[in-house]
């Protein structure tokens, strides 16, 4: 009894101080993410389309070209690119929530890049603000669902136990990031270091309407070209119907749809032209109908030409322009089919 009472007193003392710190100490801005959210919040009232996703959105959907193409197609739309390098679910859902809450006038359409939940923590992200900032209760629920969701039934009970055993340490690490967020870990030190060393420079230079071209690079190296061709052959062999998915990632898409429809906007899903990643198509028929699929090389051979590649996953500037024009036309078609 005494032990319980003492533990409770300790917990109360900790929670009171940590909660107060979490409330009063501002979180440090996260490079690019904070700048983009802030720019979107302050953008004029004429944003019709919001695109959200990873670098496959950030570096490949050019708002200027999108706007021109839709104007030429007789349905002028103004796009803001909220893509961020390396952003995958559930981080993108967190950013989407913040973005939609930051403006009075919602966009008409939200283009969402279809991707699987990133559960694994990349070594380069460990301990970074970028990994920490989006860990909240909802995102933890998504990650837990992903960790607990049954795998495509191979391996039986042993396989299941092994998979859970492998997932648990990663889930625990995500949990630590959530706790760090809730308890304002390090925010006092951030303030102290700012007082001692001055404000830390945060990358906040972003281009017009959220778009920035990728850093220059001289196309594919011979090794990359080989890997790209092999991946392309695999993708082509699988044809247009190679869906995969897990219940948690599907649920994440549903959650995005609810968030978007709550503000009166329409969600369109995009499968980007990247043969290096596995192709993810939603299982739900209604969601599938709202998907613009660039994942089939035979349907869009120009997007898969090695000459248009910056690296195996990304298009170069000319490829991005072509991709944006094709996307804009498909968006206009979709809007025309269901006004």
């Amino acid at each position, binding site marked *: 009894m005494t032990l319980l*009472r003492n533990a409770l007193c300790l917990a*109360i003392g900790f*929670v009171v101080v940590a909660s107060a710190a979490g409330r009063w100490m501002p979180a440090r801005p996260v490079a690019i993410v904070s700048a983009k959210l802030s720019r979107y919040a302050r953008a004029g009232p004429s944003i019709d389309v919001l695109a959200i996703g990873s670098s496959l959105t950030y570096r490949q959907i050019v708002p200027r070209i999108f706007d021109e193409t839709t104007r030429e197609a007789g349905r002028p739309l103004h796009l803001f690119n909220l893509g961020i390098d390396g952003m995958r679910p559930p981080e993108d859902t967190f950013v989407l929530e913040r973005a939609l809450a930051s403006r009075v006038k919602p966009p008409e359409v939200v283009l969402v890049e279809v991707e699987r939940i990133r559960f694994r923590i990349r*070594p380069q992200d460990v301990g970074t603000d970028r990994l920490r900032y989006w860990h909240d209760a909802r995102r933890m629920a998504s990650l837990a669902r992903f960790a607990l969701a049954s795998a495509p039934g191979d391996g039986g009970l042993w396989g299941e136990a092994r998979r859970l055993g492998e997932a648990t340490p990663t889930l625990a690490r995500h949990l630590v990031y959530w706790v760090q967020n809730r308890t304002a*870990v390090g925010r006092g030190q951030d303030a102290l270091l700012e007082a001692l060393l001055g404000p830390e420079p945060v990358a906040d230079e972003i281009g017009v309407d959220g778009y920035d071209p990728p850093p220059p690079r*001289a196309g594919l190296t011979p090794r990359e070209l080989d890997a790209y061709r092999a991946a392309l052959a695999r993708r082509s062999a699988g044809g247009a119907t190679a869906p995969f998915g897990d219940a948690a990632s599907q649920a994440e898409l549903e959650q995005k749809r609810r968030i978007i429809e709550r503000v009166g906007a329409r969600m369109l899903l995009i499968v980007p032209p990247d043969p290096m990643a596995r192709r993810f198509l939603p299982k739900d028929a209604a969601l599938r109908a709202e998907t613009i699929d660039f994942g089939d090389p035979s349907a869009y051979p120009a997007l898969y030409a090695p000459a248009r590649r910056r690296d195996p996953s990304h298009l170069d500037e000319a490829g991005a322009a072509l991709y944006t024009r094709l996307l804009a036309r498909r968006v206009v078609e979709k809007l025309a089919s269901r006004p």
Partner: protein
Amino acid sequence: MIPEAASAPQPILFVELRFVWIFALIFLVHWSLRSNAARKLWLLVCSHVFYGCFFVGDPIEFGTNLFAGRLDRLPTGWWFPSLLWLSTVMDYSVGLGIERARTASARKRWISTSLIVNLGVLGFFKYFGFFEQNVRAVVAWLGLTPSWEPLYVFLPYGISFYTFQSLSYSIDVYRGRLRAERSFLDLALFIAFFPQVVAGPIVRASTFLPQTATRVAWAKVDLRGCLVLFLVGFFKKACVADTLARVSDLYFAAPEHYDAFSAWAATLCYAGQIYCDFSGYTDMAIAVAGLLGYELCLNFDFPYLSRSVAEFWHRWHISLSSWLRDYLYIPLGGNRGSRLFTARNLMLTMLLGGLWHGAAWTFVAWGGMHGLALVVHRAWARRTADRPAIRRVMARLGLPLTLLWVLLAWVPFRANDVYIDRMEPSDRGARRLHRTSAGFEDATDHALVYPYEDTSAPGLAANPDTPPVALDPATGLWHGTAEDGSDVTIRLHQSGFAVTGTVWQAMSWLGREGSERVCRDAIALVLALLAFVHALNARGVFRTVWQRLPDPAFYALLGVGWGIAVTLVAVGYTPFIYFQF
């Protein structure tokens, strides 16, 4: 597609949240076991698992690769924990061998075996690279081109600490001060006990082994004391040391850019950092051991309040300084001879003590400065023994003079060789690097940025952010190709001694100094506040307050303390400084 990096080894640090869960498990199982032997066995297993975590990375991945025979996929140094076993088995045998030996020469053979193997292993892992670099430099100085490829030797964590610890056991048995330990379990636990295996304190067998012979009792655990000590240690390391490290790391990466104020501020910050880092670790180690019913020795006793260098060494890293006194200084002859003989012994002890801290001449210089100060202090004390007036004056000046000397000596201790990855004369914009046993790390955030090309650590070589570099023996430069195809050339920009010279010049306001400030003037306020709290603590002001509180108030206050500590913690942790020794 770029292959995903294999998981790198993940040392378990006392300041991490996962340590709390791991320790909770160790603690609960330990105290729920009824037999003392079972408890010791449990702690021994936990200690080796804890130590193994410093080398094996993801245990599942490690086990899978090991059993599949894919040794090339295992992290570099995965077998280093076996050295701990080697040391344990050997010193256990040596202890029994010495006791059973019938002749003095047989006893000598046994102790020689222990010395040769222990010091041989330590010498190879810690000093081989240093030796090779110096031979390479001498060959190059003679105008010849070294033709051999460098052999990169990774330093196993904690080897300096557990080697000294196990050596002290064998030597004590040899000297007849200790009976050989019959229980292998007890000796193995003494050498591998996880709270202190990686960074001390260097516990003596005569202190620890008697504790293993008796049953540990929960009733004897000072729960409040241990909890407070752990929090204090955590605060020192994670909040104070890591904050001050940001200033000193920035400064020592490019001291020529900064002014005299920065030199003083950074040196003071480093003095605070190393004290809080190491004593914080020790506090946590003592607290963790205390919660398990074991007592470790005191390692720090407010050293910066010392009035002489001799006193400083009675208060700083006490377990090492007393080890050096008992197993090096006294065997060398101590003060049983002429003044010159004593001075020689003092200098030798401190020079070797410096070298123990790291394989670099700057550490030797640090030891030499302290050795010199000890010799001067000894001579001064003798000359002024019958002059009370001078002694009274010096009693007042002792503290600032000692502190000044200790501060000046920290400069070579901290000054690493600085490398840059650019060949142009202007070094602006170049990345400042330090060389480690794994490759080149960023001088300000300690991230490994250029591993050696022949490293067998898959997690390093496969990461696109870390292009490997190889040494060109002819030029002494490291070359590599970055991911974007550009060439990377790394060269020595300033040696540790050059850095030391630059800092000392800036501190003296005599030399050419830069114009930039490494930090704002607020650092003076922070340092003054820390010094004030330190002085109050030395007077025992905080020692009694929490002891008088009723339980609910104490634990609520402890919770408040943790709440404050976590807001001030450095989120991207820096490994403990003494792990590298």
